């Protein structure tokens, strides 16, 4: 069982609101990731981090931002939510070596109305 937690699980908010999706892992993993998944579609990497103070953009362009001030915490923020941001956001983490298993959180379902 992976120890990676996301909150909130479900969120419905109005257009223009600022939201932060929280992600925490207790495994001491250096690498953390955010994926976005629309229903019935593949997962797309939007952000990743190799460690504290490291953040990189993923393959899919996203208006969200991330921060990595602590190893265990990798929050994702949308400054001004829009309906096009409606999606599922999955946080994940892995150990330092390339190719290691990536562990996923349960996901945060965001609906912007």
């Amino acid at each position, binding site marked *: 069982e992976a120890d990676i937690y996301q909150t909130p699980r479900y969120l419905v908010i109005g257009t223009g609101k600022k939201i932060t999706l929280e992600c925490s892992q207790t495994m001491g993993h250096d*690498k953390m990731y955010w994926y976005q998944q629309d229903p019935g579609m593949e997962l797309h990497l939007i952000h990743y981090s190799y460690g504290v103070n490291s953040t990189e953009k993923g393959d899919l362009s996203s208006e969200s931002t991330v921060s990595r001030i602590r190893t265990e915490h990798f929050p994702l923020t949308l400054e001004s939510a829009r309906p096009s941001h409606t999606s599922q956001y999955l946080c994940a983490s892995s150990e330092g070596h390339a190719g290691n298993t990536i562990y996923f959180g349960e996901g945060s379902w965001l609906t912007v109305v």
Partner: protein
Amino acid sequence: AQSVSQHNHHVILSEAASLELGCNYSYGGTVNLFWYVQYPGQHLQLLLKYFSGDPLVKGIKGFEAEFIKSKFSFNLRKPSVQWSDTAEYFCAVNAHNTDKLIFGTGTRLQVFP
């Protein structure tokens, strides 16, 4: 650019039927290959992975996958499915020198008693 194709988007089977889900990837170099499963309402979890060695990989819950390098394929199999195998299955790949997982679009499997 790397990509992963899962040709079966939705598969419906009766219990005890055999299962094979296709996965093909496009990348010319050495890869790591994964199958993840997402049961309804749960997080993504690893079924099995291939890094090197025996191309026939056995995973949890009776699943196995075979890496055929010449065909760029990593098909998932199970000889006899159960109702509890109802889930979404994702194939994923990363190149040996990267940490980013590229996912397929997923295959939704429904098993009826």
